[in-house]
């Protein structure tokens, strides 16, 4: 079946929805999503969204700008960061007017709390900048934006899985999908296509990310020859529930929780004397892993404690109800009475599809754009988060840059000719699907996926080094070869999740390989990318963005300079 829309948006997370509301003012909009819209991963966001509202204490967009730049270890593009921080206050007020039920101060204003790396006066002390709705901020914003999109007449195509994004002669002309329920192929011709497909934490074994976070669209675009930026930077959140990876929000430390090791020491005092447990995530994760490596895990084991016992019970009940429930259900403890065992968990992708500040996708490191193609949200790299994202800045990023992309799309429509995706292109996709459905190979999707996730976690997470990663790249190559010999059990047409997971596996392998190769070539340590063999940040050689391209000779790298407008790189101390 063939559809036509002015704008097609892939993904119904906050980035996709915010863009949809905006683009719907200029023409017809379809949102394609492999889940029911509100099931998107944005709904899991807990802790907050940042803006210098000053509802609780003095703050300023400029401090926010500084913190974001420094938090990202000076790799973020400062023109983009400035745009985001300057637009933050307007954005939060707009969300409130759209109905988001933010938690309130006693006077009835939007309440704010502390978060990692949010400071006043350029690093002097923690500041309350995170606006939140208890610990379900993502869920609260998600429903408001979804409901508004419906009101704006956006067409939703739930459980439509994108198989291909068609870029022809430097121009994007639409998308090919499979309707999961029926197994039918649906083609969407569009003047503008926005990719808002979220993160890819499922590349790693332990992750806070949802099953759907498999990086499909990044991998699809990479295969067409478009670049991926800064893929070596993947954030490991310090406090994943031990053994499960389920996130315990940084808001827990914002409300007064502290980390303790096996000797009952508040170890963050050593690593970040000024802001301690509220240091940026990369530093806290490394600190935890260092404590564990040096034998100071709890009972010498591989976890530490997040201790909320000193936090007022009422605050826990009111502001952290969700994580309290997680602790009770999944590990059988009440965080008011017992410390929570935690370990870093793969959480957020700083790298992704390179875009300018209006969401236009870049086709090279020089800044040329792909006509008709836009990206926003976690899948994109603007880059505002640089080498390490600060908490609460991702939700802000999705809404600010989702809106900007929506506006840019609206303006681009009148100059873009509609073009139909050829039958040939669709047939190729159908043949691929048929090939998989009829494959008689011996390899199993689940086995390959779990092997990939395990080696990525072991060799390319908080600490990295050349020998490990060289081994990793070899192993990924083998997994890739083996994945050509898949055999799947379900050969039916309808709701075939066996088939979809096999397609996703291909994307995970592809993305894992780019992460590994990007990490291998960056011979310095910056933000989340820590090289044991090159432990120092090297601004002279590496203050630049990595652009990875797929070529006939394999993956190749080029570089784009970092935009520095206001803050000169300095040593990162907290």
């Amino acid at each position: 079946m063939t559809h036509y829309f002015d704008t097609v948006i892939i993904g119904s997370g906050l980035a996709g929805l915010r863009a949809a509301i905006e683009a719907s003012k200029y023409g017809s909009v379809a949102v394609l999503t492999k889940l029911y819209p509100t099931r998107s991963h944005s709904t899991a966001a807990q802790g907050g969204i940042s803006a210098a509202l000053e509802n609780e204490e003095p703050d300023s967009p400029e401090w926010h700008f500084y913190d974001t730049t420094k938090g990202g270890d000076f790799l973020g593009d400062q023109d983009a960061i400035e745009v985001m921080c300057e637009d933050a206050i307007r954005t939060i007020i707009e969300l409130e007017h759209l109905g988001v039920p933010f938690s309130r101060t006693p006077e009835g204003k939007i309440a704010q709390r502390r978060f990692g790396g949010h400071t006043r006066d350029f690093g002097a002390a923690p500041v309350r900048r995170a606006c939140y709705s208890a610990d379900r901020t993502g869920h609260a914003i998600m429903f408001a934006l979804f409901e508004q999109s419906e009101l704006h007449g956006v067409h939703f195509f739930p459980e439509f899985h994108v198989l291909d994004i068609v870029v022809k002669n430097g121009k994007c002309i639409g998308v090919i999908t499979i309707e999961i329920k029926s197994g039918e192929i649906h083609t969407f011709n569009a003047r503008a296509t926005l990719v808002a497909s979220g993160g890819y934490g499922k590349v790693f074994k332990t992750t806070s990310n949802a099953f759907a976070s498999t990086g499909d669209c990044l991998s699809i675009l990479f295969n067409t020859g478009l670049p991926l930026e800064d893929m070596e930077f993947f954030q490991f959140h310090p406090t994943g529930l031990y053994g499960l990876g389920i996130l315990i929000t940084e808001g827990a430390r914002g409300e007064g929780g502290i980390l303790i090791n096996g000797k009952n020491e508040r170890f963050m005092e050593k690593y970040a004397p000024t802001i301690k447990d509220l240091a940026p995530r990369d530093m806290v994760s490394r600190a935890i892993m260092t404590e564990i490596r040096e034998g100071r895990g709890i009972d010498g084991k591989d976890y530490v404690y997040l201790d909320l016992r000193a936090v007022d019970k009422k605050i826990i009940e009111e502001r952290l109800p969700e994580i309290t429930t997680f602790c009770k259900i999944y590990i059988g403890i009440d965080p008011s009475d017992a410390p929570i065992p935690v370990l870093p968990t793969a959480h957020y992708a700083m790298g992704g599809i390179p875009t300018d500040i209006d969401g236009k996708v870049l086709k090279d490191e020089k800044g040329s754009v792909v006509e008709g193609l836009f990206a926003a949200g976690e899948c994109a790299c603007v880059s505002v988060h640089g080498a390490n994202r600060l908490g609460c800045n991702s939700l802000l990023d999705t809404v600010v840059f989702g809106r900007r992309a929506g506006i840019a799309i609206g303006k681009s429509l009148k100059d873009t000719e509609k073009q139909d995706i050829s039958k040939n292109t669709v047939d190729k996709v159908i043949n691929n699907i048929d090939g998989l459905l009829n494959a008689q190979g011996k390899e199993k999707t689940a086995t390959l996926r779990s092997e990939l996730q395990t080696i990525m976690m072991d060799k390319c997470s908080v600490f990295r080094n050349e020998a490990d990663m060289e081994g990793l790249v070899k192993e990924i190559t083998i997994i890739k070869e083996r994945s050509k010999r898949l055999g799947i059990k379900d050969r039916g047409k309808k709701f075939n999740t066996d088939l979809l997971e096999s397609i996703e596996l291909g994307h995970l392998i592809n993305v894992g390989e780019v992460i590994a190769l990007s990490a291998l070539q960056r011979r310095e340590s910056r933000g989340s990318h820590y090289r044991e063999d090159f432990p120092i940040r090297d601004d002279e050689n590496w203050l630049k963005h990595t652009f990875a391209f797929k070529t006939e000779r394999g993956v190749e790298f080029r570089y784009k300079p970092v935009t520095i407008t206001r803050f000169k790189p300095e040593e990162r101390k907290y």
Partner: protein
Amino acid sequence: MKKYFFRIKRFDPEKDSSPQWKEFTVEMEPTERALDGLIKIKETIDGSLTFRKSCAHGICGSCAMKINGKNGLVCQTIIKDMPDTITLEPLQAFPVIKDLVVDMDPFFSKNELVLPYLINNEPPPERERIQSPEDQGKILQSITCVMCGSCTSSCPSYWTDKKYLGPSALLKAYRFIFDTRDRATDERLKRIITHHGLWRCHSIYNCVEVCPKEIDITSHISKLKRMAVRKL
């Protein structure tokens, strides 16, 4: 590790004329989730087993089904709290697509009838609309709904009248009617007091018993009823 038995009601739309029970045995840690069991079966025994999942920690609402006779989320169900045999069926009262997957369109479409968005045509203030914590307290439970469908699927009134709005859509109406920032109370009330609306709820409490977010849905509906009597 311990052995657990899963009895699963399966249906393949391309092969079966009616659902069939299938049994599987898997080894699991008692601390694992029922969802982990399903995944294990799919990965190691039968790749064609079909179910929805996404967040795996009770926040996205994807994985609702009937678990040992009672609706709930498999990702929030810990095996050690269960008997050794775990029986799983698709949510009842919605059309089954395949195995444990049902068509949720009839469920989601109910929301549209209650104008599920904040309506306030007064010019917005420059900053946020003020709302006291007490006022927000009134909607606090209702905003935690994850739209999993457990409630509506367990409601006898819905079983007999598929046009009935159902507990979840009524809760959605409540969420806006009791939001002090909203101005469309009368319009919404009119929409929910129709033949297939508010008065179909006979306070049977099935919904409250199954809601994985522990929302006291019936008491919210009762408040709507009291308001409707007062206002209309």
